[in-house]
């Protein structure tokens, strides 16, 4: 009889320990986060001088804050734009100094949001706001942006609640996500003003390049949130190419002037920016100071090369798809892109219609951007350096998903191109994501 409690005791101890651990975990998960204590601002005063405000305005352009924090047709910085993520839609907040925005915020609160990803009341922010990048912004820059935002006319605008569901939208989920993927950076008091440090500061911080170019896992995270190894923007149906791989978007072999031109004019060599990057050029990089473009270009050029070991395309290309794709190409595409995919140059000697032979966008491992171009056509951004871009018609109304897959397969296999085929399912999925967007 006395043996039974002896046997049962370890089980009971284990059960008690497990329960205690679970309780601890649940308490940790559900306990509301407190605002992290931050050092008070040295520089921000309630009446910032005009030079600080102007500096803050420029910093907001560097970060393209307005891009996400402005709804279509809405007041600038008043928020309310829906950002599609694989987990649901996140709505940007109002950054003007209205009661519905930042009216009660201090420069310290603003810094807490940028550096710690935490709202004024301690609420953890959704990482659709790229605080894995803004944590690298210097305190003086944060204070200047705050001064600029305070100088804007207040706008009353309440953003719709995020559409993420009960669990994914919870503070507990954010706590887990942050434990895995977010660590506040070391505090930087003042931003580097030039040289390689300036380029790294911009790319990793305000310009938040990795927000799109990072390869994300199923939880939307990455072991290195500053990685630029290329990422599928699943909810938008675009692929942000690897900036480490010269076969994709890597610029290691390019001249600095070419990289600057791409960011300033929206085109360079046979490259024309499209999709989300066109938006970045239009609203942000075309307005950057030449020295910042130069520093950024030098940083991007100096990134380590990491090419994907390209296994030769294993999927056999169906002959029928190639034949049908070739026919569609001749009828619909050759007039502008050339019978041999050679492209056409305008009077300025630059490409009006880019060559498709050897074109890295055509050859991306992920065919998203090619299929987007065929489905929806469109223009490059009109910039001061390239005010009148040429346009491409959309084919979503003229060609079936199979036809678009076939013509995409064809251009990925013709004229020395060698990339895997595209299926009608690929096209259908991209089309669906673009409609959601």
């Amino acid at each position, binding site marked *: 009889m006395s043996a039974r409690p002896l046997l049962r005791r370890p089980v009971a101890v284990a059960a008690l320990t497990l329960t205690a651990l679970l309780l601890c975990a649940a308490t940790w998960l559900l306990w509301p986060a407190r605002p992290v204590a931050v050092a008070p601002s040295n520089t921000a005063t309630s009446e910032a001088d005009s030079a600080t405000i102007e500096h803050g305005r420029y910093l907001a352009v560097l970060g393209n804050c307005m891009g996400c924090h402005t709804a279509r047709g809405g007041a600038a910085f008043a928020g309310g734009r829906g950002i599609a993520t694989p987990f649901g839609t996140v709505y940007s907040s109002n950054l003007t100094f209205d009661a519905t925005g930042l009216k009660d915020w201090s420069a310290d609160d603003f810094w807490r949001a940028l550096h710690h990803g935490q709202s004024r009341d301690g609420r953890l922010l959704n990482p659709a706001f790229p605080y894995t990048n803004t944590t690298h912004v210097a305190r003086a820059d944060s204070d200047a942006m705050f001064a600029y935002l305070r100088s804007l006319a207040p706008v009353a605008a309440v953003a719709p609640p995020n559409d993420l569901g009960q669990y994914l939208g919870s503070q507990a989920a954010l706590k887990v996500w942050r434990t895995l993927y977010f660590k506040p950076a070391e505090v930087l008091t003042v931003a580097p003003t030039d040289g390689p440090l300036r380029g790294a500061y911009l790319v990793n911080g305000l310009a938040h390049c990795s927000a799109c170019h990072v390869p994300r896992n199923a939880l939307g995270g990455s072991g290195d949130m500053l990685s630029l190894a290329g990422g599928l923007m699943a909810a938008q149906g675009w692929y942000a190419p690897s900036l480490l791989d010269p076969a994709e978007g890597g610029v290691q072999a390019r001249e600095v002037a070419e990289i600057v031109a791409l960011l300033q004019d929206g085109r360079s060599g046979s490259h024309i920016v499209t999709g989300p990057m066109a938006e970045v050029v239009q609203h942000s990089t075309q307005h950057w100071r030449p020295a910042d473009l130069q520093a950024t270009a030098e940083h991007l050029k100096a990134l380590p090369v990491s090419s994907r070991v390209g296994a030769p395309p294993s999927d056999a290309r169906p002959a029928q798809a190639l034949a049908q794709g070739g026919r569609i190409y001749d009828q619909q595409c050759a007039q502008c892109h050339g019978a041999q995919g050679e492209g056409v140059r305008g009077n300025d000697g630059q490409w009006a219609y880019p060559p498709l032979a050897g074109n890295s966008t055509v050859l991306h491992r992920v065919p998203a951007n090619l299929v987007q171009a065929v489905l929806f*056509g469109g223009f490059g951004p009109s910039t001061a350096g390239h005010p009148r871009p040429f346009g491409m018609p959309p084919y979503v109304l003229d060609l079936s998903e199979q036809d678009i897959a076939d013509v995409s397969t064809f251009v990925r296999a013709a004229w020395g191109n060698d990339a895997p085929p595209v299926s009608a399912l690929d096209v259908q999925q991209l089309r669906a994501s673009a409609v959601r967007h």
Partner: protein
Amino acid sequence: MLPPTRLAALLLTTHIAWAGAQPLPRFEDSLAQRMQACVNCHGQQGRAGPDGYYPRIAGKPAGYLYNQLKHFQTGQRKHALMARMVDPLSDGYLWEIAQHFAALELPHAAALPARAPAAVLQRGEQLALRGDASQQVPACTACHGAALTGAQPATPGLLGLPPDYINAQLGAWHNGTRQARTPDCMATLARRLPAADVAAVSAWLAAQPVPPNAAPVAATGTRVPMECGSFAAPVTPAAAKAVQP
């Protein structure tokens, strides 16, 4: 009936045959070349006929076209494809594009044979030419030109358009998914018109031949029946530059 694949193949062949029948213009570094992006929907040179859904844009007043391009950007008109087209373009470029299409004087396709019953067409004609005072609806001609070919600087012509397009626009104004500058007279009007009247006026307008000189008339001045934000010239980059000191 044809199986869907045969039908699709037939449609595709027809489309390609039609496209192939057009002489392929040589590349030239021009605005017209840049606007090849528009032809799949709006027809060569923007002269889509009334037999599809998308409207002809050639010859519409530049102010009207510019307003529409901007409204696709701001979401006052909702069309995902058009928004994607115009989103990356500057105001200056949009104004040039509007002027380009406005300046095109191209022949119109023949009107569609009227398919609506005579009584419906009669009602449509009444609304278009005389209005209906009992519903506080002025005649279309009061603002869109006596011959309904539009008025400068920003009022569009109503002839040569597909009936479904006209119908859809009045519906969109009714529902608030198309908005013009305030006061938005067309939204007010669309909400006064019962659905049957919308269908009647769309059917009648689409069945009218376009007169040989289809150019928009000069500005109709102030003698218009309603307050209308769209009568004013749009704030174009060129206009904005002119008013700057």
